[in-house]
Structure formats: structure tokens, C-alpha cells
């Protein structure tokens, strides 16, 4: 008994020692900054000088602010388009490539390529593509006679334009899903084929259920990215025109730019809370208790 007890102690000690470095890092670089952000969100502070506690005033002010409400709505649109357009697209391509059609390796590389190019470079390319006199308008005009459109300058289409240029880069999630799909035993498909199941039924009844865990993980990652989206939109539109493409990340940045640190902190806290809600919703939607534990198969 004594030996068993001593072993347990040693195991616990080992666990604590292994967890300690990362826990300390997590505390100093997430928990502490989060608590500081939470506290500053309850104050009036311009980054310099004393903080003045003002309770939930910043939250009330933000919720009454039309720009913030627009950013909040845009964040939801971003998260949904990442999770429900980009991931299904990536899954579709992965399901095709896993059957190893001709040039599948070249296609896999081609789809992944944009992910190794810097966001800044891609954003600049898309600014040129979307220009009134750019290639997109030229093609659309030549093919369908469509009037030239200021894609990034028209509030009706600007959000769609910035989301589109991100959503089509499916490479990252495609690689994860492809790796998972390749691990599905071939015998399942062979058995289904013997039973007379066609390709669509095989994908529906074998591939998708087997990819469920990975899909939940990729959707969580994609929607989390959508929630905190900032770079390409900021580079392409700065959140404009008329805040049409402003996300909460951009709103936060611009508030810091105007030295409104406490309001920027409030946006940050709401962003974190929304991220938590999104992860919880995916968990509820897919009926899995802990999507983050479902690793790529």
C-alpha cells in the first residue's frame, strides 16, 4: 500500500511539474492580461493617467453605439461564413482528393499554397483585383455585360468582397480534413460498394460520420478565426466604407488608435465572451461534449 501511495504522489508531482511551465505562461500571457482587460473595461482610461472606475458604463455605451453593433453583426457574419462556407468547401475538396484523382497531389499543393503567402501580399493582390478598373470587373463585364462595380467602395458589397477573398482559401482546413479522411479504413468503402452503395451514399454514410470529430474541430477553429478577423479587411478597407466592413477587431484597434483604451478593453472582453459562446454553440449543435478533445483522426 505504501508503495502504491508513494507512486501516486510521484505521478501527481510529475503532472504538476509538467503542467507548471505552460500554466505559468498561460497565467502571465492570458489570464493576467484578460483580468487586466476586464478591469480596465470597467474604468475610464485613456492609456495615460489614473483609471477612474465607472462600472458597466462602457458596456452600455458600446451597445448603444451603431458602429459597434455593426461590427458585432459583421463578426457573426464572418464566423458563420468561415464555419459554414469555408469548412464545407474544404471538406468537399478533401472528399474528392482522398479518392486520389489524377494530379491530386498537385491540386493538394495548389490549394494549400495561398496559406503560405503573407496576408498582406494577398490583401494587396485582392485590392488590385477588386479595383474598378481591375480584372474582376473586366471579366464580369466581358462575360455578362455587368456594370463596373467599386467592390471595396460600395457598402452593399464590400463585406461580401472581403469575406470572399478569405473564404476561398480553404487549404488549411482541407489539409486537416484530408489527413483525417485518409485514415478511414478502405475496407468500409469496399463493404459498402459490395452492398451496392454509390459514391454519394458512401460519402454521406461513411466519410462524413467518420470525419465528424475533425469537422467539429475545424469548424471551431474557423469560427474562432472569423470572430477575431482583422488583418486583410483592415488592409483592404480599413473597416469602411461607412463601417460596412468593420469587425470587432478593427473597432478595438481604432478605439486604441483614438486612445480610448477602456472602451477598446470592453470590445476585447465582449469578443472573448462571444468566442466562448460560439464554441459552446458548436458543442450544442453537434451534440458533442468536448469538441476540442476530438483530434484529427
Amino acid at each position: 500500500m505504501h508503495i502504491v501511495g508513494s507512486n501516486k504522489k510521484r505521478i501527481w508531482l510529475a503532472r504538476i511539474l509538467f503542467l507548471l511551465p505552460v500554466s505559468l505562461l498561460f497565467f502571465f500571457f492570458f489570464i493576467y492580461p484578460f483580468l487586466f482587460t476586464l478591469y480596465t473595461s470597467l474604468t475610464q482610461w485613456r492609456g495615460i493617467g489614473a483609471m477612474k472606475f465607472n462600472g458597466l458604463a462602457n458596456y452600455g455605451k458600446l451597445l448603444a453605439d451603431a458602429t459597434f453593433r455593426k461590427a458585432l453583426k459583421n463578426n457573426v457574419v464572418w464566423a458563420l461564413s468561415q464555419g459554414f462556407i469555408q469548412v464545407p468547401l474544404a471538406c468537399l475538396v478533401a472528399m474528392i482528393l482522398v479518392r486520389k484523382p489524377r494530379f491530386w497531389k498537385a491540386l493538394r499543393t495548389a490549394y494549400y499554397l495561398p496559406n503560405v503567402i503573407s496576408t498582406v501580399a494577398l490583401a494587396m493582390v485582392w485590392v488590385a483585383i477588386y479595383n474598378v478598373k481591375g480584372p474582376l470587373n473586366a471579366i464580369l463585364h466581358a462575360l455578362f455585360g455587368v456594370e463596373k462595380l467599386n467592390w471595396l467602395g460600395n457598402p452593399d458589397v464590400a463585406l461580401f468582397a472581403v469575406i470572399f477573398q478569405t473564404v476561398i482559401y480553404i487549404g488549411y482546413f482541407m489539409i486537416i480534413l484530408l489527413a483525417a479522411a485518409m485514415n478511414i479504413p478502405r475496407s468500409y468503402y469496399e463493404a459498402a460498394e459490395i452492398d451496392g452503395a454509390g459514391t454519394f451514399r458512401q460519402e454521406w454514410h461513411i466519410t462524413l460520420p467518420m470525419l465528424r470529430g475533425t469537422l467539429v474541430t475545424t469548424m471551431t477553429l474557423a469560427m474562432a478565426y472569423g470572430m477575431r478577423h482583422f488583418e486583410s479587411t483592415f488592409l483592404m478597407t480599413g473597416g469602411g466604407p461607412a463601417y460596412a466592413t468593420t469587425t470587432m477587431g478593427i473597432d478595438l484597434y481604432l478605439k486604441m488608435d483614438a486612445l480610448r483604451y477602456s472602451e477598446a478593453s470592453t470590445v476585447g472582453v465582449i469578443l472573448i465572451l462571444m468566442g466562448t459562446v460560439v464554441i459552446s454553440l458548436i458543442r450544442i449543435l453537434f451534440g458533442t461534449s468536448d469538441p476540442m478533445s476530438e483530434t484529427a483522426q
Partner: protein
Amino acid sequence: MKGKRFVVMALVLLIMVGLGAQGQKDPGVAKEVELRWASIWVGNDSKAPAVEELVAAYNAKNEGRIKVVIEPQPDYNAYEQKVRTSLAAGQVPADIFTIKLNPTTATFYQSNLLMDFNKVMDGAWKATFDAPSLAQSEIDGVLRSLPMETAILPLWFNMDLLKKVGVNEVPKTLDDMFATFDKLKAAGIAPTSQMTGDTNAWTSMIWFSHFAVALGGPNVWDKPFTDKAFVEAAKLIKRMITEYSTSDAVGLGAGGSGGHFLAGRTAVFSNGPWYAGRADLAATPFYDSIRIAGLPDAGPTKDFMISRLQANICAAATKDKAREEAIVDFLKFLTSKDSITKIAETSGAMFAIKTDFRPTVDLKRQFFIVAEGAKATASDLEAALGAEVTLEFAQQLGALALGRISAEEFCALVDRKIER
């Protein structure tokens, strides 16, 4: 064992002797003070070569006493973030650094981390500065930044394009200007380079500032933004964007706006003197044909110029007397007549330090002539009202141009952001 002990003891002795030697102070030799300067005048900036030479000369003259180390800050947006976050974290970004002084950055004056130059400036040094610029840099009796670079923000006319449509002179009235623009349009040339993108809609913000001051006077920024002068200025800027600019003006950034002018696609542009020092501008075939001027008569205020403090120098407050003296010594050198003349010669930039320098290059000289010829000066919108108001202006300008909101609604939206 004995041998090992001996080696350890010898090492300890050596370390102690070393530390002891380090701790000793030679009363005859003062320690060199190293000053870090987070400089934006680096890389492709037209002031960079002269600044680098000046710092090298200063370091050579003060060898062993003071050494200034330039920390290059080539990305201005990243640099501004660095200044903001450093000060918010209770640190100074460097011993010496610059800011654009406006109502937003005036918040920095609340920080005791910054030196109050009123405590260290003597009368002679003060006298070298342009008095209004120095007064503008003092807030509530505190002078936490010294005015360094100033700028006027005039209009630029590509006379080659104007001559193509039979116009040989810069228009004198607003009607003349619109008539010229109509001729340019008819000839397939976009008259102006407007933009609504970035956080300040830079070139359109300059045009708007001209209109507002022409209609409301040099103190127009003290009025509510719903004032008639702003509403009329908003109508004019909308007309400029919708009728007299390139088709991509809504959403366009400063790079695109300047790019149109550089490529000869637009005839009239607006920017500060630093743009005159660009190599790509000097390489254009119309470089010698550019005319710098104020806004043609558009309202009761005439012959004025829009100007701003472009860069103010800040320094870290310190209780170390030697360091403080070193900072003051270097800044006296940097803001001396000779140093400023040297920087101005290569860059064509304008400064808040009085010199007799006038550029030899025609385009750069025109800025000085226009500035001296102005009967009144007024700030631009960003310098007068700060970052948040300017951001709202830029965001809503797109909506105004697209007809989503009226000029009155535009002004009311911007007015909401003004802190009073």
C-alpha cells in the same frame, strides 16, 4: 581534489577582482551617456540622409561623453502604436521620439514620463523656434514636446494637363476651378485624386479643410460641426468626389490617390511638402510643371493656407542630471539653425525653427513662397479635432459620396464624435 579546490578559488578570486575593477570609478573619466532616438526619419524618408550625417557628426564631436543611437522606425503606423502602448505601459518608447501633436495625442501631455521643456529651455533656445508653433505645443503651461517639422497642405496642379485643355494658369475662383475641371473631364482626364479610405481620407480631408476654412474662417474648427460652413464644405467635397475624381475614389487609400497623380491620371492633388522630395515624383515628366497654390476663392476667407505641426519632438523625463543634460545638448544641436538648414536642404521639408534657408528646387521653393504669401493660416481637420473625429469623417465620407446620407446628416455624425 586539492587541484580542483585551487582552480575554483582562483576563479572566484579572478571574478572578484573583475567585479571590483568594474565597481571602481575613475573620477577623471565620466561614463558615456547613450541616448536612444526612435527616429521616423530613416529609410526612404527624404530627411534620413541628413539626419544620419548629423547624428554621426554629433557622436564624433562628443565621443566618450554622449552617444546618440538611432532606432529606425520605418513604418509610421507601427511606430505610433509603439508610442501609444509604451506610454500606456508606463514606459517611454525611447529617450527621444516624435509625435504628431493633435487633440488625441495631447493626452500624452498628462504623462510625467515626458520631459517638460519649459523647465530646461533657456531664452536663447526658445527664440530659435517659430513662436506660434511653440505656443501651439504648450498645453496648460506644460511643454512636453518641441515643434520640429511643420507643413502646409496646399493644392498641387499638374500644369501640363491643364495646358492640354487650354488652361495656362492656376484657377483663381471656385467657378474657374470647376470650369477647368469640366474641360479636363471632357478631355478624358480625371480632375482630382480624391479618396475616402484609410483612417483619415487624407487628400480629401485636406480639400475639405480648405473648403471649411474658406467658408467659415480660420477658427472654423471651434464651431459645431453642424455649422453651415461644414455643411457647405461637405456638399463641395461630395461634388469633388462624385463629379471630379477617379471612379475608385470611394474606398481608395492615400497610396492610390497619390498613385493617380504620379501616373498623370489626375490633374490636381493635395499633400504636404514632404511629397515633393519623393524620387518617383522627381522622375515624372511633369515634375517641373507642378504648381503649388492655395484653394481658389471659395468663400469669405481668402489667401489663407492650411498648416499643421507635422512632427514634435518628445524626450524622456529623467532624474539623472547627466542624462537630462545630454538630451538637452543633443536637441539643441538638432534644432540649431545649421542642423535644420542641412535637413531642409536635402528634404525640402519645412520646420518650426527659424532659418534663412530657401530651397533651390522650384517645386520645393514654391511651398515656402506660398506659406509666406498666406495672409492667414488654419489647421486641417485632423490636427484641429483629433484622430477619432477624423476617422468618423473618413468613414462617413464614403456614405456621403454614395448618396447614402445628406451633407447635414454627414456633419451631424461627425459632430457626435467631437468632445467638448
